[in-house]
């Protein structure tokens, strides 16, 4: 019987390991842009490694597009690589490898700040500049964080999008469907949405917390539609609750009567934008996020920015402000019926 157990466990282990291996090999062959990787030391190009949370998903691919653009503009050798499964330990391994290779700057979008912090600190100790982008890491592990949008701009952007879609004079109830009651990002956005809503004629009826659970998000959407007859709009402020709320409105036959807006990627929301349930999808410009990240990396490598610098010149984006150690991309981007089909992520 024991041998049977061993056999079963072994076969399960193999079944799990095999796809892991096959997925790993292509991710090892890093995509590089710029031809002269072995240029002589004197005229050597700056080498920047860009590490996404997950390689191969459309969100980060669109960031890479902007990064490539900046790299070509600035004559930087760009290495883009990351785990295909979002495993932070693989992120740490890649950072270690780049430290050995001696790149100039490493830009990390950490999946788990604590797991990659060790490797990031070692890289810094070896004299490599380390920054974070898309998601922040622990404080000592990086010099700057390229922040895609402030809580203020997201929260107010959401409310403004709703007011524009409904007409600014509309009176009635709105509901926020968030993620978990403990989700830090969502709570920060809610705090900036409240005063913005208070200035309008809309009344915040309640906030629901379905967690990252699609069934609960759909259920909460259906319930608030039955509960509040004067409901004018729903904010779905996570990538799970936004489509969930939109689906609930459509299943309740209230498309066009109850408007839904929120935060998600364009691909998830396209079908709802085309049916008219959703008129605005709020996010940041992901291409610009990649573009700005490479400009920050270049500025660090050439020591154009250091602690205490308050602005940075970022090519076509113009001057961007640095608040503390956060480089701000600035404004959010609103996707509507007119432009959403141009984006594929």
């Amino acid at each position, binding site marked *: 019987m024991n041998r049977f157990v061993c056999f079963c466990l072994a076969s399960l282990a193999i079944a799990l390991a095999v796809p892991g291996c096959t997925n790993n090999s292509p991710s090892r062959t890093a995509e590089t842009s710029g031809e002269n990787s072995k240029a002589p030391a004197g005229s050597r190009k700056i080498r920047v490694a860009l590490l996404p949370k997950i390689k191969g998903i459309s969100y980060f691919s669109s960031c890479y597009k902007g990064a490539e653009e900046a790299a070509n503009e600035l004559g930087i050798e760009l290495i883009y690589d990351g785990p295909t499964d*979002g495993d932070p330990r693989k992120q740490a391994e890649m950072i270690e490898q780049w430290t050995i290779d001696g790149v100039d700057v490493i830009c990390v979008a950490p999946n788990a700040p604590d797991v990659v912090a060790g490797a990031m600190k070692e890289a810094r100790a070896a004299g490599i500049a380390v920054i974070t982008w898309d998601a922040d890491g622990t404080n000592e592990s990086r010099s700057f964080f390229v922040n895609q949008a402030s809580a203020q701009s997201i929260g107010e952007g959401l409310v403004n999008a709703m007011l524009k879609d409904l007409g600014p004079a509309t009176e009635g109830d709105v509901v926020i469907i968030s993620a978990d009651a403990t989700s830090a990002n969502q709570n920060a956005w809610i705090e900036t949405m409240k005063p913005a809503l208070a200035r309008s004629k809309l009344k915040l009826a*309640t906030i629901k917390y379905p967690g990252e*659970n699609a069934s609960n998000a759909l259920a909460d959407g259906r319930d608030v539609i*039955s509960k509040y007859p004067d409901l004018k709009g729903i904010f779905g402020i996570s990538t799970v609750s936004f489509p969930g709320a939109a689906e609930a409105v459509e299943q309740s036959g209230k498309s066009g009567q109850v408007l839904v807006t929120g935060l998600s990627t364009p691909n998830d929301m396209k079908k709802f934008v085309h049916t008219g349930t959703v008129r605005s999808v709020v996010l940041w410009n992901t291409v610009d996020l990649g573009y700005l990240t490479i400009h920050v990396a270049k500025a660090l490598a050439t020591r154009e920015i250091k602690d205490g610098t308050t602005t940075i010149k970022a090519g076509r984006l113009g001057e961007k402000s640095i608040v503390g150690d956060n480089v701000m991309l600035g404004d959010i981007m609103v996707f509507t019926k007119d432009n959403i089909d141009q984006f594929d992520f």
Partner: protein
Amino acid sequence: MSNSQTLTVDHDSRPVCFSTRFFRLIRQREAGLLLLISLTSVVVGIHDVRFFSVDVWRDILVRCAPTAIVACGVMLVVVTGEIDISVGSLMALLAAVMGRMLSEQEFDISCWIGIPVTLGLGTLIGVFTGSLVSMGRVPSIIVTLGLLTALRGLTTLMMGGKNIDRLPEGLTQVAKQGFLGVPISILAAAGVIGLTSVLIHHIPLGRRLYALGSSAESARMAGLSEVRLKLFAFGYTGFLTALATIVDVPRLPKIESGIGSEFELLVVTCVVVGGVAISGGQGRLIGVLLAVVLMTMIRPALTFMDIGEAGEKWTRAIQGMFILLAVVSDSLFSWRQRHSGKVHAA
């Protein structure tokens, strides 16, 4: 057979002191659950009469359906003295496989092939779990704990970091609007409940499952095959999980790797709150179904109660309180029963 008959559900054949047939019918735990369900509905309904609208309850039943379907299987697993805490991850994997097969953007296979394959895969994984438990003699909590993580990991690989969208129109229409006005998940749940009820009460196999759970030793001496019974219970659970996936997942806006998270906990909670003994051998389907209704109605009940923004943060705590209430009401009932029994004896 008569040997196993004495080990069956009918532990309550002694004279019951409640005079009405109603209370004879629904025993302790069921009565407590029914009381909680009615009390909650009345309180919420008085606060906001919209809670009693047909639409709201139709939707609550639709949400009950997947939990009820899978609970029928997990209940039988628990009755044999085992447990299955992997159904949430299994649902995610099956949703990913089904999505990749059927979606217009993926392989675009016909539903007539995709649905049987999904059902088959679910059953197969269930039987595999059952074989590890019964033939491999690994405790089921460890096997299914491992599968909970492993199947979720496989799902992430299957999805390749993308969400799956655009299931065939026919499938989503049937899931959302139903068949002749009745949502398909409710029809499926009704079918499964009927089937499970027949299995428990009218087929020897059902009685053997209870016999195995109440005493594995006696069951073995009576000539029952532990391996076959457990393979059946786990296989049935796998099949039902696939069925729940097929009728419920197309209602959702997209298939993402987080589907079914914490579903296993909800199902096990319903089975245990429904009065199925975790040590095996005891438990009634009606109790489990009432527990499913109670656990599902808490979310909408809180919405209709206007508990406010601060109150919403307490949702989970309130859900936990309901679990405790259901269990406590049970012991109150049994205390009353014992108490009135003494009076009668005197």
